[in-house]
């Protein structure tokens, strides 16, 4: 079947999509967007997290056909969405780098999409809110502390730049 979907603001089309295929497969294997990671294909790890019509979901659990006509944002789209200049990172991405929240990096794209969504809804989240928002994302490397640091850092920087504006 044919699937038309807007990804990171651009209309995209894929043909010969298998009816049982996931949105994750469509993104990675047909649309050349390997940022969203495939680690479990059963919704447990969150490394495939994308926004579907604005809402964070596991792309591995969305049928490609269900994304037809919808709007998808992946980790590849975060910087442009945040208004970062070409070649620059979004505030959340930069905070992950600066806080040392990235080791092997496999979990990072999903965490970035989830953290970005959290900070958009709540620019000053409590630690409990951060833990809750990231509870569907597993990381086997960092022990999570640096990830929490990164989200706090991104929130603090955004608050500061907001005051300056």
């Amino acid at each position, binding site marked *: 079947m044919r699937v038309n979907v807007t990804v990171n603001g651009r209309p995209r089309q894929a043909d010969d999509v298998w009816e049982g295929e996931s949105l994750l497969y469509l993104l990675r294997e047909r649309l050349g967007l390997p940022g969203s990671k495939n680690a479990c294909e059963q919704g447990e790890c969150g490394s495939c997290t994308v926004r579907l019509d604005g809402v964070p979901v596991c792309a591995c659990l969305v*049928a490609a056909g269900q994304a037809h006509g919808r709007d998808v944002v992946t980790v590849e789209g975060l910087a442009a969405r945040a208004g970062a200049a070409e070649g620059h990172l979004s505030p959340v991405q930069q905070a992950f780098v600066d806080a040392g929240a990235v080791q092997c990096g496999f979990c990072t794209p999903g965490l970035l999409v*989830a953290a970005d969504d959290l900070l958009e809804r709540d620019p000053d989240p409590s630690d409990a809110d951060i833990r809750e928002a990231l509870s569907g994302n597993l990381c086997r490397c960092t022990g999570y502390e640096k990830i929490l640091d990164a989200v706090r850092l991104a929130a603090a920087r955004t608050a500061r730049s907001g005051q300056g504006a």
Partner: protein
Amino acid sequence: MDFLRPARWEEALAAKAEHPAAVPIAGGTDVMVEINFDHRRPSHLLDLTRVTELYTWQDAGDRVRLGAAVPYARVIERLAGELPGLALAARTVGSPQIRNRGSVGGNLGAASPAGDSHPALLAAGAEVEAESVRGTRLIPVEEFYTGVKRNALAPDELIRAVHVRKATGPQQFSKVGTRNAMVIAVCAFALALHPDTRTVRTGIGSAAPTPVRARTAEDFLNAALAEARCWDTGAPVPPAVAAEFARLASAACRPIDDVRGSAAYRRHAVGVMARRTLAWAWEQHTTGEGTARCA
């Protein structure tokens, strides 16, 4: 495989009548796992996500008519006032990503004994609105679960909505698992006080082949509360009554040993949860807290 994409409910019903083996897919949080792991290769997938009315709910007097595909996240945000037990259960489902997609209709479709909606629906009182091109029927939720991952739907039927009685008193939900997120219940227990009828109802999850009410425990408790005039006086539930209620709730289980826990552990834990949820709910009832929990 064919991917059917009805835009309207009538089209979905017609498609299901034409292809009774078609597998409906809403949030996909059960269906896609099965497809990804090759556990299922249906001839047709019937995508319900374009049928907008499945994502709405209506006030129906003493009930809420909850569209089959309303995601858990919406139940938590918008319906915690009228349906506090279901909202509490929904909070324990999976993760934010899963709660953004997964639905009560999907939970009912899957009919897993471990589904978290079921105990809350049993305790609150609910009916499943099943529809086909032949017509509509309301199935009491107690009769909906017919076996392990089996339900009462006919091959041509779809779930349109679930009618859940609005809370008239405090409701509680408790679930045993290894962490707060991403846990299939080892076992779960829901309890609802119905001060309007002076009754207590229960639901047990993951401790029998299907979700069940602990009816003997309910009958005992209802009689004991009446006899001790607890509803009139607001007196605490006598400890001996709570203990017997817990024992009877345990006895209502028909659990198995599996990787998540032993049968003996489940029976024990259900008794503990029964006693605790009763204490919490009764405390809310007598102090007046909880019924007005805001949405």
